[in-house]
């Protein structure tokens, strides 16, 4: 059971008459969890905001942390840069419990940041944010020529790809030969 479900009840003010059922139920205090990225800076995020991330939501459900345990054990995301994680947390907080609008104009415009965000969001399984990122990435190349797309996204041409592949093979071959020679030397 997640800690949100374990929250203690408190005297909740009655809801407006339009929702009599919910007015009767006691208001559950919001639970918070803690996450940190590569920079080890811990971010406090509400359970409601973390609902956006299928990965974290799954972790919370499986671990059944209490608030104290959650505070003592922040979720580590060592593969995500601190500023990117901050961006994700901000987005989750901003869209907590709200229907997501059709467009989000606050996403980073720079390719480096956007692609890092994509990888983080993809890892954290935040579907709505990934959709926004997807649209933003598509906007970057709308109306561009293949050369311009290559330049913007730093995509190597097929020829460059082949050359790099050959180079890598050559290097691997040399390394393998070196290792064999070293092994033979050891055997002697």
């Amino acid at each position: 059971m997640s800690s949100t479900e374990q929250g203690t009840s408190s005297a909740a003010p009655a809801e407006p008459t339009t929702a009599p059922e919910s007015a009767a139920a006691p208001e559950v205090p919001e639970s918070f969890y803690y996450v940190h990225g590569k920079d080890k800076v811990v971010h406090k995020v509400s359970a409601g905001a973390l609902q956006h991330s299928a990965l974290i939501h799954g972790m919370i459900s499986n671990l059944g942390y209490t608030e104290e345990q959650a505070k003592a054990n922040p979720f580590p995301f060592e593969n995500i840069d601190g500023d990117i994680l901050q961006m994700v947390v901000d987005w989750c907080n901003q869209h907590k419990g709200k229907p997501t609008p059709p467009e989000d104009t606050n996403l980073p415009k720079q390719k480096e940041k956007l692609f890092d965000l994509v990888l983080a969001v993809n890892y954290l399984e935040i579907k709505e944010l990934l959709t926004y990122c997807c649209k933003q990435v598509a906007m970057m190349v709308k109306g561009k020529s293949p050369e311009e797309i290559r330049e913007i996204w730093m995509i190597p041409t097929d020829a460059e790809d082949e050359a790099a592949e050959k180079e890598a093979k050559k290097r691997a071959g040399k390394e393998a030969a070196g290792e064999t020679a070293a092994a033979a030397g050891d055997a002697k």
Partner: protein
Amino acid sequence: MAEWVDLPEKFKKDVVENLDLMSRFSMRNVSKSDREIVDSVDFYVPRVRYSVKTDGKKCLIMIYSGIEKFWRIEISENWKGNVVVKKTQDTYNLNEALTKEISGTSSILLSSSILKSLLIQESILIGTFELEHDNYDLIPQINVYDPISSVLGAKAGGWDNIFNAKKLLCNWMVHPKIIEFYRTLLFNSNTLEEIAHEGIALEPENMVPVKILENNTKYGNRLNIRRSDFWTAERPDENKHRMIPKFKDSDGYATCRLVSKMHFKLFDDQRFPIKRLNSKVLMKRITVPQNGVVARWNKSECGVWIHMMKMNNESKYHDFFKNETCGLRWLCEKCSDPFDYWYYRNLPRRVIDEAEWIDIAYRSCEKSPLPDEEDLNRNIKKLKDKFVLENESNPKPQKKGAESKSRGFGTSKNSNSFEGTLIGRLDGFSLKKVGSVQFADFEITSRIYLLIEFACRNHQPSSPLGPSSKRQKLTEGEASTPFQPAQLYRKEKYNF
């Protein structure tokens, strides 16, 4: 720091799904792996219009992506023998076109190459591929087909070199034989659901089509053969003459689709029992056993439509008739696809938007069609005046700026360099040697050919507007009679 190559493949596919056709085309040419990703993502193009004029010396490619969203490529040959390409996006105004002059090719070959590069991919499905000719004679059409088939289709590049389209639509001038050539060699038979002939009778009464006279014949389980005549004039007294030939020798049915609410009275005037076909449609079934003909008058809140057919064909279409909830097709704003509704509603607007490209409008097919040309020109002039007046009273809002344009469709005028533009980068842009096409090689599916020919026959060589400017006068009495088939057959006026 992440790069494009580091992103997950699924995400890349999602990005490609968000690209328009031209960006997708650019993306496809970035690298081999990106091409594979693009090719794995399906793409739908609602409509493509390919018009060919003056023996292929002038061509027009219109690729529609939505309502008022299109790429327009007009290709012509100048006095130097060079090809001039004018490209615009979402506008017909050639003053905004990117223009380029190219030597060493022809309009027809270049336009075919562009179509091939942009649209022949397994992942691309075209809703309707529309083909227009400006000449109803077979030989000029064969002369145009010859170079087209040297670039496009199975003869030029095998069965991977064909279009995936749901409908092949031709203007009323395209010869049935030519349609059959295109169908068999340029289109994927697995995706093709309909072959149609369309035309519009432009008359100044209305600025939008108000009536469709149509015949449909089912071929096998999948293919529908259709002929549709759009009308901007009501002319209810002429419907009876025009419908009967549409089904009398056919296995299909003819339909008259009437959008005006005034036709409800025609339905109510038929003194036959009413049957409720479904929650939306009331029907009156009128039979003329001595002639073996049945007419099904249908009424819904959208309008009135009448199906007529030989009695022995009725059962074939029984399920379709029973489940039909609106028979107005593209005339109905509420029930038709919004894009199709927009497209057909704006057909008459071509007289002002694309005055040179109105070969879908009927004119006489006689060898000396001068009087009819005059008739058509007079109608066009009147319609034009109406549209000009409308534009003046309701000016269109300014379109978005150049930043929303696709690659190669910007607003810079007379760009003499194609460096960096789409056309300059098209695959297959360079000329290939044109091989000769032996028509004897083509195996014409005789049954389909006959169906197409039937669909076209009633308008070859004359259009629904009639063979001369002095339109055939209806005999006295008939002219004022509304379309009431039951009464007509009782008089045994028509023998089938």
